[in-house]
């Protein structure tokens, strides 16, 4: 499963640049974007949940600027400890989701402009509370909760979906008790109205100090970056019956993982977690890699699992 943004192909990178410089039309760009989406679709053949690749997204926050009232896209902020930057959303005094825009918005951002149907088996990725707070201004947690809840309600009526809340803040900053409570309450609220499985995905950082909190959350499973965490620490008390999305291929290295090492890794995971509960994935956002490398890593991952 490859939640979040998959790297754009070199052709699409060039096309977006050409479009920005008015060298190609919006229709031409959309055609190339669609090619990328279809290529990724082929690569995911046999996956339980497919990813659209989010090729039209700029970052995980930007789509929300389209539906939140009085929302301005402002300056750049580093995306955690990477060399990718997100733009910060500046909110007005009474931000709320304009629900009249949601249908078109879902079609555009979550169904890749019609490349997928609403009942396709897809993994949807949304920013979790702390991430949303980090890349926005003038927004309280209560307002973030309302925004994410409104969107989640709309997305979760679609069948055959896996939900990933992306949250690298866990392990990056020390959460307050109040923040932990807000996170737990938000997830419990979602669990009350939806059976869609939800994974809380961490990335980049050592989360061992937060395991007690993580494992207490009302979610279907957890995503762990195994280039920042050891199997021993993470799986010593892994809760029974929960899903584990294993960050098994690195997104900060172009070295394509060796099959033997990955096989050894998965065997050590299967010793502790039932195989049916394990998803294989990238350790962080795949889009941090050049497309050709991400594709090669995906191929190796598929080979190991087959």
């Amino acid at each position, binding site marked *: 499963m490859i939640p979040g943004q998959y*790297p*754009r192909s*070199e052709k699409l*990178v060039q096309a*977006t*640049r050409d*479009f*920005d410089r008015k060298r190609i039309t919006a229709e031409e760009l959309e055609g190339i974007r669609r090619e990328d989406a279809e290529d990724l679709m082929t690569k995911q053949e046999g996956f339980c949940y497919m990813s659209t690749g989010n090729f039209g997204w*700029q*970052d995980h926050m930007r789509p929300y600027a389209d539906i939140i009232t009085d929302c301005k896209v402002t*300056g*750049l*902020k*580093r995306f955690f*400890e*990477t*060399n*990718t*930057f*997100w*733009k910060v959303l500046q909110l007005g005094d009474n931000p709320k989701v304009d629900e009249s825009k949601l249908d078109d918005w879902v079609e555009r951002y979550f169904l890749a402009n019609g490349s997928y149907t609403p009942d396709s088996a897809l993994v949807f990725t949304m920013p979790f509370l702390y991430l949303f707070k980090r890349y926005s201004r003038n927004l309280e947690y209560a307002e973030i909760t309302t925004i994410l809840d409104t969107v989640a309600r709309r997305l979760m009526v679609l069948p055959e979906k896996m939900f990933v809340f992306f949250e690298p803040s866990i392990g990056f900053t020390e959460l307050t008790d109040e923040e932990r409570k807000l996170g737990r309450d938000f997830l419990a609220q979602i669990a009350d109205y939806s059976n869609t499985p939800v994974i809380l995905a961490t990335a980049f950082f*050592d989360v061992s100090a937060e395991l007690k909190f993580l494992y207490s959350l009302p979610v279907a499973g957890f995503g762990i970056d*195994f*280039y*920042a*965490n*050891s*199997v*021993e620490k*993470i799986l010593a008390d892994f809760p029974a019956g929960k899903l584990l999305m*294993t*960050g*098994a*291929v*690195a997104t*900060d*290295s*172009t*070295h394509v*993982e*060796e099959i033997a*090492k*990955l096989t*050894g*890794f998965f065997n*050590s*995971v299967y010793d502790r977690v039932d195989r049916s509960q394990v998803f294989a994935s990238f*350790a962080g956002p795949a*889009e*941090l*890699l*050049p*497309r*050709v*490398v991400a594709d090669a890593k995906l191929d190796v991952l598929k080979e190991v699992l087959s």
Partner: protein
Amino acid sequence: MTVTHPRNTRNTHPLKPLTTHEVGSMAKPSWRVKPFRKMAITDADIDKAREWGRRLEIEETPELTELLQKRKDFSKEEKARIKWFSSLYGIRLQEKAGIDLVWDGEQQRVEMYEHPVKRMSGFEFRGHVRSFDNKYYRKASCVGKPGLKEDLHTQEYQQMAEIARNEVKVPVTGAYTIVDWSFDENYVKDLTPGAADIHERRRKARSEFLVDVSRETIYPTLKSLYEAGAYYLQIDEPAATTKRDEIPEFIESVKESIGDLAGKAFFTIHICFSNYKLLFPRLKELEGILDEVHLEYANRDSEELGTTPEERFGYEILSDLRNTKFVVGLGVLHIHTDFIEPAELVRDRILYAADVIGDPGRIMVSPDCGLRTRTWEVTYDKLCNMVEGVEMAKKELGIG
């Protein structure tokens, strides 16, 4: 209020308080880009070259427009001449705007990462990755011990020094940024995901990578520039604070990169779009090695006029710089918007900084970063307003 002057031992012209400088890159004109992409030059491209030549009072413009009339299939020599013109135009634009320390907007370089890495051994390019929005850069992977295959900037400096009427300042991409923006397949190998020692192994490998880039590529580059006569040397380290735990390694890499050149030239470090708080207190270890610390501020500031901390919240880090010996490189132009900062806003940002630092002689004024994402029209207007704002601030400070 005391007024000191940044140290200036080699040049005949002493730096004045609130000296202005550009940070590095500017957009490349279409007539500079197209010949290298095998695209035909259009009438509009030639008109633009002519128009800017007129605005910047460039005597050699007829030679350029005649050369561009060839439209396509330019020879290697012709392409080199077009590049030279692009540098000439870039420098003249800054001089015309009134900038004191100039560079050509990096017209000779692809961009700040690809240009040096292409000239280093031990790297192979792997493809494009996103910087932000639809902006991507070609990212390489280290596959062997880094070294220099060819000169990085000395010939370029000599060319610019010949063109420029003002003093030049040479931007050089720093070791930490090269390491951070590269993948590594050489120093970190054989990792097993989930291994108990994975963090320690990665950190050790990274440290070795950084020392090698500093010693084998950046130090020789700075030394060569110094020996060729360059005095203002700017080390670009936008990645400096990317990883919280690596500030000590970053500081060491600057020491390794400058080495015995400290005190012989004027060294600036440029850092942007980062959490600057992380630099302190370790940054003070670079006193006596670095002269100017240039940061981006306007990007995180308000557009309101005023000189209170509430209006100038983007300049919060100045209080940490106050008690250092560094000259403060003050970013006053937001480089990612077409908003033309009014001169009054520039003035207020400077006045606020002068108040916090307590010495306008310790302030140099510039954009936040390179203006490569803006058009030349926007760049020029922004720079002109910056210079006007500097004059207004000087008047207020009584240092005209």
